């Protein structure tokens, strides 16, 4: 990076030869990862040519490489005094300030440099959550699955969500949505009686709110109260017949109760609403197997395996197929599926949990 900056600078300026020699020595040292020597050389260059923005930018960059963020700030600010539009200096100064916790000061520099990822992180720190989400999402488009960006996007979204909920709870504490928000919080904390109480309070206020039935159904499902879960998921499905999640949840609740035929109908509906969802296909196979329809079970599970090949769910599916074939007396097929199950289990220890 330093070399690039140097070339850019050289094309527009004419430093003294001595300063240039130190600058080049710094670049060489940096190439050899000798940051301390590079810092000495860049400092000499900046002293010999105090108007050399390149010398100051390079010095700031070298300090950043050494993770000496405090020392980087001075040279970079000086570079910007000399050339206020120098984007590399804005970028580096933004990073240096952010690294030291001066997020608010970092923001304008990162904005100027259009450094969306770091800008988003700085905005999380300064509480500009909406902007943070926008910038982090933009950065993730450029760098998909970057763990830091994903983390900060999650954090920003979470804080934004909390902000909204706090406002809701403060402004309308007795509203259905406030009870719903409380219920969801209790659900996360696995405090099911409290979650149930809040969902019921919300439903009393606004019985036609569909998410409430889904949420309450999940509370009952988590507490293994499958009949009650079924009733809530059914209510959700009635209110929102196009909701694939509700159809899947209803099918699963029926399956848990051994009501294979009814489960199968709901799971097929879920599959039509949102085709090729592996979880739906797995449960469809289970329901068919429970009904004694081995062909339908095999078909659903084979379809799942054409979508997912190496996941924990794929391992489960191979195991389920082994059971199906074993029951049919197809020992070789059962053995093959068992081996595939074991292979995937060994390669994916999470599937054993």
């Amino acid at each position: 990076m330093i070399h690039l900056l140097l070339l850019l600078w050289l094309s527009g300026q004419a430093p003294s030869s001595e300063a240039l020699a130190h600058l080049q020595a710094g670049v060489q040292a940096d190439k050899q990862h000798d940051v301390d020597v590079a810092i000495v050389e860049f400092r000499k260059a900046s002293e010999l040519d105090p108007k050399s923005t390149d010398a100051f930018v390079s010095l700031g960059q070298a300090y950043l490489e050494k993770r000496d963020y405090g020392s980087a700030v001075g040279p970079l600010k000086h570079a910007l005094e000399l050339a206020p539009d120098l984007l590399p200096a804005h970028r580096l100064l933004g990073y240096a300030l952010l690294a030291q916790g001066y997020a608010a000061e970092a923001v304008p520099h990162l904005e100027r440099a259009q450094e969306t990822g770091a800008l988003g992180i700085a905005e999380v720190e300064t509480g500009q959550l909406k902007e943070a989400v926008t910038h982090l999402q933009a950065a993730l488009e450029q760098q998909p699955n970057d763990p830091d960006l994903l983390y900060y996007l999650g954090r920003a979204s979470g804080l934004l969500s909390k902000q909204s909920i706090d406002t809701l709870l403060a402004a309308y504490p007795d509203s259905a949505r406030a009870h719903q928000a409380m219920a969801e919080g209790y659900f996360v904390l696995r405090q099911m009686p409290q979650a149930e109480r809040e969902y019921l309070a919300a439903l009393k206020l606004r019985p036609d709110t569909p998410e409430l039935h889904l949420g309450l159904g999940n509370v009952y499902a988590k507490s293994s109260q499958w009949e009650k879960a079924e009733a809530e998921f059914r209510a959700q499905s009635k209110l929102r017949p196009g909701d694939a999640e509700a159809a899947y949840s209803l099918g699963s609740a029926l399956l848990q109760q051994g009501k294979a035929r009814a489960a199968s109908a709901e799971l097929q509906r879920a599959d039509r609403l949102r085709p090729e969802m592996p979880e739906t296909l797995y449960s469809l196979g289970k329901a068919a197997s429970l009904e004694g329809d081995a062909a339908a079970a095999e078909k659903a599970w084979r379809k799942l395996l054409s979508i997912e090949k190496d996941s924990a769910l794929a391992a489960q599916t191979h195991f389920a197929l082994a059971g199906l074939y074993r029951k049919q007396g197809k020992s070789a097929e059962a053995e093959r599926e068992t081996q595939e199950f074991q292979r995937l289990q060994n390669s994916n220890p999470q599937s054993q949990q």
Partner: protein
Amino acid sequence: MKKRELLRTLVGAVCLSVLVLGAAAPPPALLELKQPRGLDFVLQNSPTPQKYLIETMPGGIALLDYNNDGLLDIFLVNGGRLIDPMRMPESFDRLDPRYWNRLYRQNKDGSFTDVTVQAGLANAGDGNYGMGVAVGDYDNDGYPDIYVTNYGKNILYHNNGDGTFTDVTAKAGVAGGGWSVSAGFFDYDNDGKLDLFVTRYMDWDTKRSKNCGQEWHTYCPPETFPAATNILYHNNGDGTFTDVSQRSGIAAKKGRALGVAFADYDDDGFTDIFVSNDGMQQFLFHNNGNGTFTERGMEAGAALSEDGRRLSGMGTVFQDYDNDGRPDIIVTELPREIYGVYHNEGGGVFTYRSLEAGLGVLTSGSSGWGVGLEDFDNDGWKDLFVAQSHVLDNVEQIDPSLHYKELPLLALNHEGRFERADPGTSVPTASRGAAFGDLNNDGWEDVVVTVLGGPPQVLMNRGGNRHWLVISLRGTRSNRDGFGARVRVNGQTRYATAAGSYLSSSDKRLHFGLAAADKAQVEIVWPSGMHQSLRDVRADQFLEVREPEKP
């Protein structure tokens, strides 16, 4: 009054009567919690802040008629005293009477008398923390002997036939060692002498104990400690046993065993072994008929859940729940895992049928230990009883949706599908062992459950009008207890055993509900291979069947 009005009045009256009938109190529970006089045992598990794993695992119970007076007596295994922290060498204060195992003799009036001292059972070994019990007449003298498993050394008590027992462990060579849990007598080689299988949980001791959990300290999950092998002892017929664990192939598989049950699942005439393991695959040891066993859980479809997940196997029972003549397996587990029902399809193959059997609704929020398949309502279908409680005594702090103390599960069998019934108690407890038998000889099965830190729960069957038959086997060529015999009565099958459940030993008599039938057709296949048929046997009787000495 016009005809139409009359009709309306009549309809109204009928509707009212229906409403009144509908609003009537439900029928009384089948089982009823009783406190028999004299049964003053308290299971001392001694929980400590150290969360020593053994604290949450005892204790066993046996229902046996030790003095052959026709009344079931009760033997209870105690834990011991743990201190915080334990010192080496480990001592559990078993000489203190509070920590003794206890034998209670049943009196004719249904009360019990503590006969521990006169029976010679007071000394359980100071270095032993008690776990379970197995009962069987290993020397075929007609008196049931007692084997006590421990964290420490196990003890075999020979029944002298005069109300006393003698510790014959050293001579018999069955002390084992380590952490033994459930055990059972069975005759694996059909030589007419009962052999002994002992499960071991893990390679653990108080010195290597850990405190798990983060915010709250908890007992550690099983995988924290190394697995252990189980032990198979062959009965030499001279009062001694030989450890054949290696030779038989049993020791080839290390596990974290808690429960064991026996039955001949593939109908080849040799008794097989099912071992419930905690947090790993279950073991199905197929008896090869030549003194060796092959573990076939995975290939038989009895190792994992339907979804290929490992089970927290605890208690187990190996009996035919759907009256198809083949023994099925039920395994009790932790919450979020439905108790496993492995249905025997024949041909050595099992399918996981927990959902079909209705256990998805009944068990996914509970932790099960002792378990039995007994026909409590005498309708001809074996019902399910499970002693329940979470393993962690502070589970509510970790997951408020779960509970340490639970009610037992009683689920009545409706042609292969279980439905919840009133368990006869509304007091949640930390239950562990469970043994089944007819305590008052009324033809209706009762249950006794052990409770950590408390007295046992005795659940007496209120009885009813249906018919029943109780069969005592008297082996001659086969082992005297007839363990391993397959007994078929009016389309129901039982495998003769006292083993199964968790840490416990049940009444060895075979109980059959006959519903409305006042006669029974009885078919017995003895371990010797002898077939015996009894036609039109009168219902409502205790019948001793002696094995013919000649084919």
